[in-house]
């Protein structure tokens, strides 16, 4: 057994989805599934990536898992490919159940699909794509961490991430409307308003755990005088953990429901809250699986939306936020759409003092929660948090320069950074851009 393999074995984490999943596997089943996926669902892209890599290791410096784990090669991006895809290709799919278990753990819990490594690769190899192929194989083999698989089940049964039932969703919106009317008596959260300009879409955790974000969004919409609506049907949730479990068919079903809800309501665009992975799903992966080259109804991310409202004077800041802040750049909207300057515009319009972390913008370090890793749940929490010591160091440096608050315009980043702040004793506040805007804006 190699040193890397020994290390990997020593960090094996018990998980019901992985452990019971592999119990059902046979070598023949594994070979059949792998070769079916490779033959029918991959092509030149995979071959080029696999054949082009010269094993130079430059990608290693890009990966927070590698940097945070004493430069352990098994955590390097190329090392993850070596432990998974290269072995599969070399053995023509003939690999053991134990190999599949380890491959599932590597692909789902040791890679955030953040695509930072693609920027450091001389050939631009997208290792996130290769990890998604491994996840797809593991999905087809029924070997997936329990917690994220539960989330995928919720998506299939309710078309949202959090098992929110149809009435609970509507009730949550009415509750937030009632709460907001304590502050702004004329405020509405208009349900099912056909022909509105905007469908405001959120992710499952918002009605479940972060309902104040819906309240705040309603206040912002109200102050800006916008013609907006929210649906009272499934299709309201823009999130998508099926994209990350490799259940592409469900990913497509979720995006179909989301965009067809927008079409039914005859809205001109979807404005989505501060989420990164959902943006990836509706702007890139889910829509394209269905054959929509671009979103059929335009999607405006919250950062773009806030930028637009502030630039056009549709909302006004009464008093800037006076605590010094630092800004986290979420991978899916920075490397995914280059929204980093817009987010800085919003921060500078609303906050007195922005203290940058370095590296930043498209070179940011991931929060280590994204790519579905945080959704793999408590069993993998310590590995996730300890695998992002570099982010803690970044935050610590920003703190020494005076930053008291971390702004993270993404739900998964929030979850990841919250754990990092707690684990490393950083004692910093964590906020969404919407929190800051709501606190500082003129409300009508």
């Amino acid at each position, binding site marked *: 057994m190699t040193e890397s393999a020994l290390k990997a074995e020593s960090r094996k984490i018990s998980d019901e989805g992985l452990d019971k999943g592999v119990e059902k596997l046979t070598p023949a089943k594994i070979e059949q599934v792998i070769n079916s996926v490779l033959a029918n669902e991959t092509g030149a892209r995979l071959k080029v990536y696999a054949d082009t890599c010269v094993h130079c290791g430059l990608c290693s410096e890009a990966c927070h898992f590698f940097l945070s784990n004493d430069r352990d090669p098994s955590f390097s991006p190329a090392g993850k490919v070596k432990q998974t895809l290269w072995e599969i290709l070399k053995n023509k799919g003939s690999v053991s159940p134990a190999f599949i278990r380890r491959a599932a753990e590597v692909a789902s819990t040791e890679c955030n699909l953040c695509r930072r490594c693609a920027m450091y690769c001389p050939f631009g190899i997208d290792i996130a794509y290769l990890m998604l192929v491994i996840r797809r194989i593991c999905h*087809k083999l*029924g070997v997936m961490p329990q917690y994220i698989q*539960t989330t995928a089940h919720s998506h299939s049964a309710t078309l949202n991430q959090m098992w929110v039932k*149809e009435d609970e969703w*509507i009730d949550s919106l009415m509750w937030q409307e009632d709460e907001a009317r304590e502050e702004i008596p004329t405020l509405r959260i208009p349900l*099912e308003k056909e022909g509105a300009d905007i469908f405001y879409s959120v992710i499952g955790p918002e009605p479940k755990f972060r309902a104040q974000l819906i309240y705040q969004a309603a206040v912002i919409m109200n102050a800006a005088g916008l013609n907006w609506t929210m649906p009272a049907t499934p299709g309201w949730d823009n999130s998508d953990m099926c994209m990350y479990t490799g259940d592409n068919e469900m990913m497509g079903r979720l995006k179909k429901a989301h965009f067809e809800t927008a079409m039914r309501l005859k809205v001109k665009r979807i404005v989505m809250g501060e989420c990164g992975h959902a943006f990836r799903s509706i702007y890139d992966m889910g829509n394209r699986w269905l054959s929509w080259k671009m979103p059929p109804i335009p999607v405006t991310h919250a950062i773009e939306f806030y930028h637009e409202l502030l630039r056009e004077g549709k909302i006004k800041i009464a008093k800037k936020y006076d605590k010094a802040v630092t800004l986290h750049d979420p991978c899916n909207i920075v490397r995914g759409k280059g929204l980093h300057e817009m987010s800085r515009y919003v921060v500078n319009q609303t906050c007195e003092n922005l203290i940058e972390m370095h590296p930043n913008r498209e070179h940011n370090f991931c929060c280590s929660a994204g790519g579905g890793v945080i959704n793999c749940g408590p069993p993998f929490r310590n590995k996730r948090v300890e695998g992002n010591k570099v982010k803690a160091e970044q935050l610590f440096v920003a703190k020494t320069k005076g930053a008291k608050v971390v702004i993270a315009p993404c739900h998964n980043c929030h979850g990841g950074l919250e754990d990092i702040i707690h684990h490393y004793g950083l004692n910093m506040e964590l906020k969404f851009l919407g929190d800051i805007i709501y606190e500082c804006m003129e409300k009508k």
Partner: protein
Amino acid sequence: MNDSDIKDWDIAKKEIADIGNWKGMFEWVEEPHVSPDGEKIAAVVKTGDMEFGVCENGTPWESVFDKVWYLRFSPDGRLTALVSDAGEWTVAVDGQTWESRFEFVWNTKFSRDGSGIAVAAQNGRQYFAAVNDSPWEQTFSDMSNLTLSPDGKSSAASVQTVAFGESDIFKFQEGCYSAALDGKAWDMNFVNVWEMSFSPDHQHLAAEVRLNLYDYTVAVDGIPWEQKFSSVWKPEFSPQDGSVTAPARIGGGWTLVRNGTPLWNSRFVQLWHHRYSPDGKKIAAVVSPHFGRWTVAIDGTAWTHNFGDLVTDLVFSPDGNRIACVGKDDGKWTVSVDGQPWTGGFDMIWRPVFSPDGRRVAAKAEKNGRYTVVIDGQPLKEEFRAVWDPVFSPDGEKILICGIEGSGEKYFRQVMRLADI
């Protein structure tokens, strides 16, 4: 409502209400809704502190409520709303509430002629449907995809039939969901049950189901097809012979299957929302013939013209000889009729409406914040602050336009002779 149900085709123009006056009567007036014959306009209004009502043609309902939402006219012109009084929810129809009370109620559905009104309801964390004030006898721990038969005589939904812990992934994968018809669940359970359709005689029910995490098919009256696919979309019954068709994904491409067997030879990158012509002889569907392009296919043959953004709202003419749809290209919306798109794009366009003889097509449209009706590609000269779907007269000579005009807030019902436009 059918165009033949509209009695008043002779009055050229008639003011029904001035919404502006309502704003002096109430704290606020929400977005208005118009009856299918255009004779009534109504809105949810705030009548007092934590108190809401409905105003119809300037007259408020006698009853007021804690909350009122989802105000909609039924196809037969009755005004419905979901209302809450002292924390109990029910349905109000023309101001009269159902006797049944619920902890919550939502998702109003109407039968084709409006005689059937169905809602999803919840009491004590148990879920069920209620049709015309009659709740299902059986209840379920969850329910979705409420569907009402076209004649309103039967209702169905996806229901949870087996209890499981959310983290029990293996129990979930054994199948904990089914479809319930009039409250009675099918014998067989599935991993998932999604959209469903009734047969024209409302005796049969077909639904898209997932047998495990990988195999999708269609179940008819609880029995899944033998054939399995990597995905399916909503099934439909043939009006001709009762067979069931559904889009299915085979080998990475989509085609239409009938009773589990491919019906169309052609394969598409995507295929969904198939529709039968009224006589059941033709089938049309929204398809993607190439990645990122969208059009309509009839009996497997796609129109030459296609759109880059999307195609939706596919409709057959009453005689089944023509097809229209909404399409979008480079952010501009239009209507395509028999594969020929109207020129000039709009900021939004609604589902097209055929005249009874199928010769004329009209649609509500929006451009630069103003609304109009487009007839055979030509917008009316009049612009409106708001307008509703047009209706052709039975002889196809006239068209009913309902809208709020110009700078005021007066709502008019107007019959125009097509020859004069």
